[in-house]
């Protein structure tokens, strides 16, 4: 089982991101369970959503306390919420930011993590450019597909088509695809 925890703020599509990740996994014939943290969500308030992926039925119903991967949709949460709580030592971290981990002040924290599993991408910028709204959730899924290899970009695109239609779907597909390419390039140049 692979467990993903997504942190963001109300209005950034955190819950939708977890749902779409589960749809993408379903499109690959796998079992997936996505659920929100069930808070009194308000725009701007910290929000968490979860997604489990597995090759058999998922029965576990507890929140994800020891994630294999973290997607952080809003870097300002780093200073407000213990987003890294329980992350496995070999876990993936994807942050929506134009900064590096060092610029975010995370050098010491990530020193003990596998560098090829850490990644940042400016998902809000990509969303603004392709969709016209600062909703970073979908491009981050493209980036997540690239950094983790857990899910294919084509499956993310299928999930986008399930959730959205028309221009919004097209824009999100373009944003997710560009995020995927950016992250692939970053990883290739880092390990070339």
């Amino acid at each position, binding site marked *: 089982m692979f467990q993903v925890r997504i942190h963001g703020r109300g209005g950034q599509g955190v819950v939708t991101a977890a749902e779409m990740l589960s749809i993408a996994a379903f499109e690959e014939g796998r079992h997936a369970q*996505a659920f929100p943290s069930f808070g*009194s969500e308000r725009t701007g308030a910290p929000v968490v959503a979860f997604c489990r992926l597995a090759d058999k039925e998922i029965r*576990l119903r507890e929140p994800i306390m020891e994630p294999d991967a973290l997607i952080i949709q809003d870097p300002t949460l780093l200073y407000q919420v213990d987003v890294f709580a329980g992350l496995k030592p070999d876990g993936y971290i994807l942050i929506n930011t134009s900064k590096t981990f060092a610029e975010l002040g995370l050098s010491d924290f990530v020193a003990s993590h596998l560098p090829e599993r850490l990644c940042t991408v400016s998902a809000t910028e990509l969303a603004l450019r392709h969709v016209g709204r600062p909703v970073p959730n979908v491009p981050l899924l493209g980036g997540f597909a690239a950094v983790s290899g857990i899910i294919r970009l084509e499956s993310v695109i299928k999930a986008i088509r399930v959730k959205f239609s028309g221009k919004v779907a097209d824009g999100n597909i373009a944003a997710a695809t560009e995020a995927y390419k950016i992250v692939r390039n970053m990883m290739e140049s880092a390990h070339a």
Partner: protein
Amino acid sequence: MLKQIEGSRAVAEAVALCRPEVICAYPISPQTHIVEALGEMVKDGALQDCEYLNVESEFAAMSVAIGASAAGARSYTATASQGLLFMAEAVFNAAGLGLPIVMTVANRAIGAPINIWNDHSDSLSMRDCGWLQLFAENNQEALDLHILAFRLAEELSLPIMVCMDGFILTHAYERVDMPTQAQVDAYLPPYEPRQVLDPAEPVSIGAMVGPEAFMEVRYLAHAKQMEALKLIPQYAAEFRKVFGRDSGGLLHTYRTEDADTVIVAMGSVLGTIKDTVDELRAAGQRIGVLGITCFRPFPIAAVAAALKQCKRFVVLEKSLAVGLGGILAVNVRMAVTGMGLKGYTVIAGLGGRAITQKSLHALFLKAATDELDLVTFLDLDWRVVNRQIEREKAHRRTGPVAEALLRDVGVVGVRNY
């Protein structure tokens, strides 16, 4: 057809396949997505021959369901928590009048203090109202139970609550196998009321009954509900024939063969319990699970049979009988009267407190060596509890408890996650 959808959506689609004729809706979390989805289906024509009514309260919702059902329409509504309490008088009336309404209860805690999260306090507070109560373990079972519920309700002429854990199931995306209209039509015949308001053959429904016959009417309600204990296994078998999977039934056992310890529970927590039991089985523990699907009528004989081989049982429930302990536990104890078993009650997950595999693992190990108290509150923060008790000893005017505890735990409207 396999789909990856939200639990609420799955239930709404299943209800639509049952061809309801009247749906009355009043929104309350965590049930709202279900009636919203049904509203859309009626509006866009996907669900035809159905009257969708937005009502002004839960009391109105149940009152409309009563009127519609008495007029011979297949009627559906959904609610949760305070909504169920607000409709309580009409809920009792629907059962007393013998009207086969099906209602989803998206289980949620009851205030005060106000809490929108999941536990079983709401439907269990209505345990004696005369409705049947079926509890779903996952979203597949939640949607299946609705199909079964319409058939059972209409055969018995009694209303049924299908209970699914609020948020944990209603808001979870997971895989479900959505039946076809043809399958549902093959399983669920058109509604043929046992009593109906018909101008051609006028009757009145809801007469006043005095001491001369009230007891008899009530006895017949009890006897009628008990008939479900025979019908439910039969309908579950037929369900398997039409839909090709096991759903419904009175209860389900898991790895209880040769189990010394059996954990008894209802709803979605059964999944986490089963994962924990697999861990413990791998470590050599003789432990199993008894999941209760049908809480009303309570399957006394089936529960006794399921627990016959064990040495002890632990009832883990998301409800609290204040001043007593468990609610489900009392029912289970009645079933095993005279069997000489050790029984423990564990109150867990109230108001959305996460029930974790780690806590269950430790709890079940303690149970296996009989180190549990008769009533345990799982993962209770004793530090917070004791601080309040000390405060109340020291001062008379200590103020509201809920607010004091929120200050103690440092919560100002948000949690870490």
